[in-house]
């Protein structure tokens, strides 16, 4: 505001009235708020990623090339490690299965038969290219979205993977 406000030419001669000062304050605050609102709206349009389960992707008929988060269970026996940290595995909600390719180190807790959330691009025809694999901090923890996805497909067994309370941890595991 200091920079944007018109300066009285000679400070001592022209005093701002109360009303003017209040208006200046409101105008400055309003300007910053509008700026923020604009930034938020633009960012909302461009940077937000939707989360889907495998079945949802197929049912909604999403276009190839869509960026999204995909979550589900890592299908048992599906993990194939290729040369140069290339990994291929399948994510399933036991109704639909997608093949995922990923290049890089997998998190410590990535395991077959357990929940996983990946972020990347849907390539169509049951294929998904992940550029990050997120794993939770606890070996028994089930990502909430994955749990919901499984519930939707009617394959949720409470108790099989009970969320295990665990505390103040530092930050997450993304690539």
């Amino acid at each position: 505001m200091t920079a944007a406000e018109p300066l009285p030419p000679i400070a001592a001669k022209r005093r701002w009235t109360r009303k003017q000062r209040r208006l200046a304050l409101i105008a400055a605050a309003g300007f910053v708020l509008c700026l923020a609102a604009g930034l938020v709206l633009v960012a909302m349009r461009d940077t937000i990623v939707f989360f889907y389960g495998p079945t949802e992707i197929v049912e909604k008929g999403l276009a190839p090339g869509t960026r999204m988060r995909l979550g589900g269970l890592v299908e048992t026996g599906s993990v194939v490690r290729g040369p140069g940290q290339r990994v291929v595995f399948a994510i399933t909600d036991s109704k639909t299965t997608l093949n995922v390719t990923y290049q890089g180190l997998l998190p410590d807790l990535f395991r077959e038969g357990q929940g996983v959330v990946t972020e990347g691009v849907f390539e169509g025809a049951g294929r998904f290219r992940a550029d990050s694999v997120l794993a939770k901090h606890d070996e028994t923890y089930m990502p909430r979205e994955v749990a919901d996805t499984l519930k939707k497909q009617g394959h949720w067994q409470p108790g099989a993977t009970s969320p295990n309370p665990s505390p103040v941890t530092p930050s997450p595991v993304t690539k």
Partner: protein
Amino acid sequence: MIVEIGHFALALALGVAVVQALVPLWGVARHDRALASVGTAAAITCFLLVALSFAALVASYVRSDFSVENVASNSHSAQPLIYKLTSAWGNHEGSMLLWVLILTLFGALVALSRHSLPARLRAGTLAAQGTITVAFLAFTLLTSNPFRRLDPAPGEGQDLNPILQDLGLAIHPPLLYVGYVGFSITYAFAVAALIDGRIDAVWARAVRPWTLLAWVFLTLGIAMGSYWAYYELGWGGWWFWDPVENASLMPWLAGTALIHSTVVMEKRDALKVWTILLAILTFSLSLLGTFIVRSGVLTSVHSFASDPARGLFILAILIFFVGGSLALFAWRAPLLRQGGLFAPVSREGALVVNNVFIATSCATVFIGTLYPLVLEMLTGDKISVGPPFFNATFVPLLVPLLLILPLGQSLAWKRGNLLGAAQRSAAAFGLGILVAVGVLAYMRGGPVLAPLGIGLGVFLVTGAIFDLGERIVARASGLRAVLSRAKGLPRSAWGTAFAHAGVGLSVIGVAAAAWSTEAIGILKPGESLTSGRYTVVLESITPRPGPNFREDVVRFRILSGERPLKPVEAMKRVYTARAMPTSEAGIRTDGLSQAYVNVGEMEGNGGIAVRLYDKPLILLIWIGALVMAFGGALSLTDRRFRLAAPQRAKAARAKPVPAAPQPAE
């Protein structure tokens, strides 16, 4: 027995907290001095009881008493003693108890503080603090009792989550909680002022040290958490815009705004209503953070308990305290005497700009954090709002604020001279530009924004130094005069300079992250991997037993260009009790930069996946935060917080602050 004593003390503390919440207000209403002062004794008693209870919990952890459910599910007899201790708050129940302990500690500190508070303000503050204590003690006792027994007791515990078996857990949560919960005091002061219907510079002066204290600890807590995440999680990142991180960033931002607005209120008796609102909002954001972290409603990449009953209880607490205080604000704030208005071009005007920007950027973090929750409730769509969103909203709002920071810092109170301030900051600004151009030329291309970021950081640091120099050297001649002026400068002026310079250092560290590089490779012994300036050579992979884990130690020789550094070890561990694998990164500090090496899976052919990062100037991010916190602590030792406030405040009001660029704040 110890466990039962702890449980009983906690229940008793609840009773005492009820007394603390009700009796002082009743006393104030009846003008009964004796009743009004009950709060003091109650607050101290309450703290002692909760401390006893906390000690009992820690004792059962140290003794590995697995008949206590909490101990059995979060500890193991083979854990080293330090982790047995820290396990006490490395879980939901224990960390709630720590929360309450710090809450009551602050209550007791206010009760004991020799700061001559008006009796009504003190009574009201203790009552408000007591009410918060009642709510959280009830929450702990009813939904998260850490003293529940198991029968029969298991022979061995389930071990603490391996990620948490780290010194970080000993330091990070207590620091963070002192910060988070410390803002409860400013909230309590605000509520007391609203009930009392009176607010003035005395109030601001009483609140400011508490705000500073909480802010210093929150700064340290966030920085510590960020460094812990950086070295423990093995991904080389230090901030992920995760909901749980945002939950601590929001109160920090609001608290930063509050520190600046209380200065205006104290010096100029203005911005009163806004300051009160900010004090309420800051703690409300702390409560919101607790709700986010404890309820699990937001998908965080942290794994926390998601128990609907607990979530609902905290939501009720949140609604009561936020809604209640805002209703009180709406009802009482119009009764507060409006403060004076002031010239837009002045120190206080600049501080208003600071508040507008910080509050707005805090709002964008708020929207980004809660939007997924709202959208899922309304439409059922699940989305994630990640770093791109915050980079596109938070950063553009922060940059203009930082750009005008040195300018505002050198403006005088009441009636500033923009031209003069601009001239004073011109040298620092020029230096910043020069450095930015120099870096751009040296790097020959590469990211363009990063050199500008470095320039901005240099501008902030030198701006703070020059401003300090100006005050000390400007009208003094000779070394002795300079020294005496330096000594005479209030500590808060030094504190401001340090805190602002700290911001600059952190900005440099963040900007330099643009040059960090990463390389992945499969290495066998003798093979090497290069990333940026660093090269690692795998020397050996050897198994080694630990107290409650097995590990493979991967040893690397490490070179910076041609120059050898001390070798570094990265570990791949399996914690036996939970059969959970973790990896421990090997980090070699090289000046302000770090080489960061992490190992992955063993490949079939005897090689191991290795990830190497070159992290230039990364230490500046946390050093900057430490310097900020140091500045805050320095301000805290300022003379004016130690002297009897009311008299001085009256004197200050009678004699307006001189307009010349005095060493003020």
